[in-house]
């Protein structure tokens, strides 16, 4: 029993995509342009050469936010999307009928269709791979060259993630929607 979350020191991110490859190899994710559980968001730069806005070229690593108040879970008609015992938002592919409500409901665009099972798939914090084996890190955290990610138990006040969230300013994405994401971006 835990409440897993992730803190992202996003300023470290160099958009190398190591996390994406590690995730795909660990979890057997499909290849394909829109088939990914995690990704790095980047906008085309603002300004005209040579007067470019460095600030506009920030890299934002993203994935399922594992919301405490998840709209995907709320709309799922078959209860395929559920909270597991660690607060991780999961999809039970046996129950999913690919009605795609959850994909529309998710404000973070975190879900895609796995063509093999014809069901919805997304990040699950490596719950059925690494965590199931008793490991304590996700594939993306372990591999990250600049160590963007800290994964851990938000309910444990002594965990590294709890400590870092006490000490450093951070924000969540689309906070105003009230989804209560468990991905925290460190400033």
């Amino acid at each position, binding site marked *: 029993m835990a409440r897993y979350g992730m803190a992202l*020191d996003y*300023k*470290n991110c*160099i*958009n*190398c*995509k*190591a996390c*994406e*490859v*590690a995730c*795909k*190899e*660990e*979890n*057997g*994710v*499909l*290849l*394909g*342009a829109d088939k990914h559980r995690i990704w790095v968001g980047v906008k*085309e*730069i603002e*300004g*005209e*050469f*040579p007067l*470019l806005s*460095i600030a506009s*070229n*920030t*890299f934002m690593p993203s994935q399922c936010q594992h919301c405490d108040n998840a709209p995907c879970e709320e709309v799922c008609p078959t209860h395929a999307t559920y909270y597991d015992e660690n607060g991780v938002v999961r999809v039970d592919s046996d129950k999913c009928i690919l009605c795609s409500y959850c994909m529309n409901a998710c404000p973070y665009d975190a879900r895609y269709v796995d*063509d*093999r099972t014809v069901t919805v798939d997304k990040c699950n914090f490596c719950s*059925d*791979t*690494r965590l*199931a*084996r008793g490991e*304590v*890190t996700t*594939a993306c*955290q*372990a*591999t*990250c*060259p*600049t*160590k963007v*990610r*800290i*994964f*851990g138990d938000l309910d444990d006040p002594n965990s*590294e993630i709890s400590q870092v969230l006490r000490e450093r300013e951070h924000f969540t994405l689309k906070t105003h929607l009230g989804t209560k994401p468990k991905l925290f971006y460190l400033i």
Partner: protein
Amino acid sequence: MAVEVSRRRFLQGSVAMTVLGGMSMAPSNLFSNEKEKGELSITTKTGTGKAVLVPTLCEMCVNKCAAIARVEDGVVTKLNPNPMFPKSRNMLCPRGNAGIQALYDPDRLKYPMIRIGEKGEGKFKRVTWDEAYDAIWNGTDKFKGMKQILEEEKDNRSTFVFCAGEGMAEHTFKNFYTGFGSSNWLNHASLCLRTVVSGYGVTLGTYPQADLENAEYIIMAGANRAEAIVTPDTMDFFKRTKGRGAKLICIDPRFTNTAAKADKWLPIKPGTDLAFVLALTYVVLNEELYDKAYVEKYFKSFDVYKNHIYAEGYTPEWAEKITGIAAKDIYEIARDFMAYAPKAVYYPGRRSTFAKNDFQLRRAMAIFQALGGGIDTKGGLIFGKKLPLKGHETVAPMYAQAEGVDVDRTKGKPGYADCAIVSGGGGWVPFRNRVLEGRSLYPVRGLFVYKHNPMMNMPNTAKTAKFLKGLDLIVTIDTMPSDTVMYADVVLPECTYLERTDPVKTFGGAEPAIAVRNKVIDPMFETKPVIEILRGLTEKISKPLFEITKKYDEDVQDEIADRGEEDVYKEYDLTIPFKQSQEELNEHAVSGYPGAYEALKEHGVFYPKIEEYFKQVSVNEHVYYPEEKKAYSVQGGAPKTPSGKVECNLRSIAKKGVDPMPTWRKEYEYTVPEGKFRMLTGRHAQFTQSGTANNAMLHDLIHENYIWINKRVAKKMGIRFGDLIEVSSRAGKTRIKAYPTEKIAPDQVFFIHGFGEESEALTWAYRSGGNDNAVIEDAVEPVYGGAAMHETNVEIRKV
């Protein structure tokens, strides 16, 4: 075959085939995967059952980061970072993670093959190893063998050329070259870091490392560490940028991911960095900002250099016109750099030669760095320590008939003016051109290629094709059917890095360590590690080679008369370096460190007191050495040159027509004719040159490369995103899709190297994107014969 099918079946059990895009039909069924096609899988979910973990070292690029392979049921399902290695600091980049796809690439070379079609056509037949070795020696009806060539050339060993790419077993292959006795060795250096290594070498006595973990002010010019990942620099550095302890000034013509992390990005005109550094030097000298104590103690010819800078008038105002960087920025950077010195780094960089003045640029950078005293010191450039390994037995006979190295400047002999200094790795482009233009002193007829792709890796692909076509015998040792392999007469399949143990290697630095690549699984198909390939080959040809030498080499005949044949042959026995297994050689290499061999087997990494020093301090952080044990300073700041001083004025190279001090010349100025564009090339984090071009996983991240064209220029030309563009120059043409962006100047274009291969045996890489070397002209850097890659102007048109 039986084994291989069952492996595939395991993969199939977990995931169905998911290949996107068409499978090109290979010219020969040797390359095709009809058997596996229907069951091909790309990724496998890791299981929760039993697994074997094997520590290894990555070979997806040159960094050699430490990985731990997870093996389930004989299949490698995951590569994880190995936290124990101070160089790679518990990380694997996207390429490192995708190493599995190099192992299970369906297009891999699987069997020895010999050519049955025309040269370059890519038609081969599968043979046994013995038949392949025999074809190398005796030839076939399609090509001549070594025996005939050497007989015709009267034992001139230099008629055979040896070339190799960078890798942990490059040295093994080089032992073969040394024993064979040719004088022609070409490696990646002249297409890569030759000028920077040598520029720093002659100035500071060695090519140093940058301590980016502690530097507080960094100028990164033409180095793109956010995309061209170098460990540990990349990891140390980008945790500290953006106002978190390390100020970054990025100097680059285009806006890179490194620029995105910079405090200041200054787009410089390509090839004018030298003027920028000279102007920085001027400010520092003129305002006396340099570290006087350091200069006093460790500079040679300082006054001469100072007067030279003044006399030439290298002011920021002068440099502004040349570089496009405002004089006020140059003043500011020079002052800031010295304020932060010695914890300031003008980053040496590591990549290819940009421009013809590259060697002088690196010299100027090294001298500028030293003016701040940031040499052999924490937060500056460091020499570090290295843990020595024991050597092994080699053979290096002298053959009287072997012609000398191809640049012969001895009196009365015809020489070449290709370059001033011939280095160990040779100069690929000038060598190739000389052979093509008939300026070689003797026929060049054979080529051994190891892990190297000349068709893709050097400017002017058309010339390389012509060069390869003109050779009698080409033997390639590789893992992939690359464009170069298509030109081979004999193809010897090497196993990938996950299927072999390689020579143990020592890594110097502030935190020195020894690491080894352990074999993760047995070689698939009929592939072998290069040491075994060479063992088989030398067993076959060593004695017959000696027979030819006996015929033509009078020195050898005399020796035999003196000492008897058996005794003489010992010196010529090519099998000696390959007799022992790699494991035995490694055990001997580290035998000076008690317990090291076992530790390397178990953990992949070793250094004295590792058990005491190595600690995990948080989920993401490890300590390798206590702070006071780190080798930041090993010489008290003294350069490693023979004089023990920074060499400002190199009179020895002046004799060879090279400027003894960094000097700006009119012809270095940047100009682009109206209607043309300066072609830039570079790197990114997802591919390593052409070596990873066919990796399905990486290909999924980036399907093809795009040409960067300034947005406003593209609009004027009616070019939109994704439009097909033809890029052309005097060297040739290539086709590539457009990416209009403001990240590049209106008179420049850029695209990434390593795409656009023409080998039909590569499912994913075949004609994917454009090949920069098809259009880059073969400009040669005059000091070391390096390929200057940013000297080409191109035309573009919408197709």
